[in-house]
């Protein structure tokens, strides 16, 4: 093999790997990215049941109900609209009514958001960035939500993953 042929082999191989990676990434992007919505956006866009997305907002005070065997329902509100959420499992340590959360899951046929992951990410003065930005954009931002971390309070985060199939997997 001449020097040129060797070089071409290496360049050809590199291009092949790059093309493979590009194809994999594009394919993965088509199937597996998850969009972020607030209850208002859900109401406006008529999201299809079964389509996975991330729901962000504040847990409506007084809406939390615990059922049998760790089933929980609550409402997520963003000032404009409310959306009922059902979750089965252990809620994160920082989950509280009136606080910001992000839940991942999909709507069922009755318009209830079935969450399989609930992420609470805040302490007394902090809320999830997604939620804060969305609220700001809609003009529902209140100062008491938004005292910045500049006063030194660092957000903690915990995640809860439940599963919708049942208690034992």
């Amino acid at each position, binding site marked *: *093999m001449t*020097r040129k042929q*060797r070089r071409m*082999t*290496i360049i050809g*191989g*590199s291009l092949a*790997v*790059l093309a*493979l*990676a590009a194809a*994999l*990434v594009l*394919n*993965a*992007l088509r*199937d*597996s*990215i*998850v*969009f*972020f919505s607030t209850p208002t956006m859900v109401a406006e866009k008529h999201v299809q049941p079964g389509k996975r997305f*991330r729901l962000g907002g504040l847990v409506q005070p007084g809406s939390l109900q*615990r059922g049998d*065997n*760790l089933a929980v329902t609550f409402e997520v509100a963003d000032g404009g609209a409310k959306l009922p959420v059902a979750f*089965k*499992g*252990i*809620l994160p*340590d*920082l989950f509280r009514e009136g606080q910001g959360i992000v839940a991942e899951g999909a709507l069922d046929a009755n318009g209830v958001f079935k969450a399989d992951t609930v992420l609470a*990410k805040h*302490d*007394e003065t*902090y809320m*999830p*960035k*997604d939620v804060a*930005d*969305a609220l700001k954009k809609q003009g529902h931002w209140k100062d008491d939500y938004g005292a*910045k*971390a*500049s006063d*030194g*309070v*660092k*957000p*903690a*985060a*915990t*995640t*809860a*993953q*439940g*599963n919708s199939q049942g*208690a*034992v*997997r």
Partner: protein
Amino acid sequence: MIAEAGHYALVLALALALIQSVVPPIGARLHDAALMNVARSTALAQLLFVGASFVALVTLHVTSDFSVANVYENSHSMKPLIYKITGVWGNHEGSMLLWVSILALFGGLVAAFGNNLPLSLRAHVLAVQAWIASAFYLFILMTSNPFLRIVNPPIEGRDLNPVLQDIGLAVHPPMLYLGYVGFSISFSFAIAALIEGRIDAAWARWVRPWTLVAWIFLTLGIAMGSYWAYYELGWGGWWFWDPVENASLMPWLAGTALLHSALVMEKRNALKVWTILLSILTFSLSLLGTFLVRSGVITSVHAFANDPTRGVFILLILCLFIGGSLSLFAGRATSLKQGGLFAPISREGALVLNNLLLTVACAVVLFGTLYPLAMEVLADFKMSVGAPFYNLSFVPLFVLLLLAVPFGPLLAWKRGDLLGVTQRLLTAGVAGLVVVAIVWAWTRGGSALAPLAIGLGVFVIGGALTDLSERTGLFRLPFATTLHRARGLPRSAWGSVFAHAGLGVALIGIVCETTWNSEYIATMRPNDVAQVAGYELKLDGLLERQGPNYREMIAQFNVSRDGSALSVMTPSKRSFTTRGSSTTEAALLTRGASQLYISLGDVTADGAIAVRIYHKPLVLLIWWGPVLMALGGMLSLSDRRLRVGAPKPARAKQRLQPAE
């Protein structure tokens, strides 16, 4: 007084770094040995002053001096001593101070043990180190000063984030930073080589040990962080594809590629330009990681900081260093001489493939990390890219890499014999297939891919062992000869065997954990029994206890299997009064490489408690794998070959280890 002294020491370190940035390169241009030697003294003095500054901050935290804002915000007088110390880097300002301290440590080590480096090369390397250091000293002093005082000192502090009050914080960030910042040395060497326009195999011999040190710490740091998340966050996840985790994974992937390409450069004097580029990219990714973590641009489990001025400052540093170094590379790289030739099927060719797959996998992770940010800024909608994305994109590339791993070390340099290597790997391949068949027949349920993936893991381990038996002539030669050969084998050969086998071990752990993990979630009352994976767990009762700065509720479980009692597990839930938040302390019971895992939820009104129990088969292999890899790295580091011609660097990194 201590706070002011610490602040002053940091300013002095900045002044020294500025001198170190300017004077040695001038000396190199003028061929003035005295001016070039300035670098050595300033680097050592810099280490001294930054060290003093860091010690000052530790002292403030230990003595709970709440007149200092950083201590007030992150400490509490009742906090145990160990967390008072680790709390120093459990916040933005302190962790940046740790970052520059480690940078100064590496600079100091090059200065102290680099006596046999060409004088101008050492001057340039230390000058580049000082450029980085100056930028970060300025960053700390201007935006993140840890020594700021409060006018009216409060009596009590606000306590450290409870999630961080764990032994993991003592180990994980320093390890990770030793890895991140350690790559600055190969970066500085690359820039120095570009400035001097000269690079050879000796250069690679110089760079490799430093890269190896950084790589070992980064490997352990990532593994440690993963284990910490696993037991601390309370739901048994060990990798989240969180942007902050990706930020540490990317330099690891690029650094692994760098280790391998530096090998080609050292042995065969080829791939010079590529090695230089990888050195630059690896440290650029470390800087990017620092930016992602420290600027708070991402919504993430780890991102504490949330101040835009800091983000912009780090972004400027990032652009300056990445842009500057890549421009220098573009201008100078063509002047570097090309090295040895090799056929596509050869050890070099295999290492090129390794580099290709690692860098492309790294690019995929980079894309997945930055794409949501870019979409948010450009298209103004929010989305997230999680595990499903990486499973479809990163995992196939890594599978290809793992398939190729056993072939690499068996191929000859320059021109290899693929057919011969395949024959020699036959045993490993058959072992892999047998394992696939056994696992497939033995288990029910789970993914059909799982047995194949386990077979791949066995193949990788088998391949590493094949390499060893080929080198020692096991089964071909008399046993005594084999032993003799094994003793004479270079340590770096043992190193690659361990590191590659570690990959297979980790893979098997990952597959077993994700496929055959059993989970039990329910509310339990005292004397209830949960059955998980053949174990019976009986809840004996709940009790309350007072800790130093928290109250905790402990649940006591009696674990038995087939009627015989095994152990008692005590998961707990701690509530920290100062911050008004609580953490879940999971209980772990290790059985071989498998673990039982219990974490607690809320107590319901009628006195029952929500409980989550997992059985995680072979989960520990996930972390034993990286430990094996790091062990391989250490063996390789102790190789005599790395000391030949450059005895001092080998000593340097050996001294480095006990310091940690």
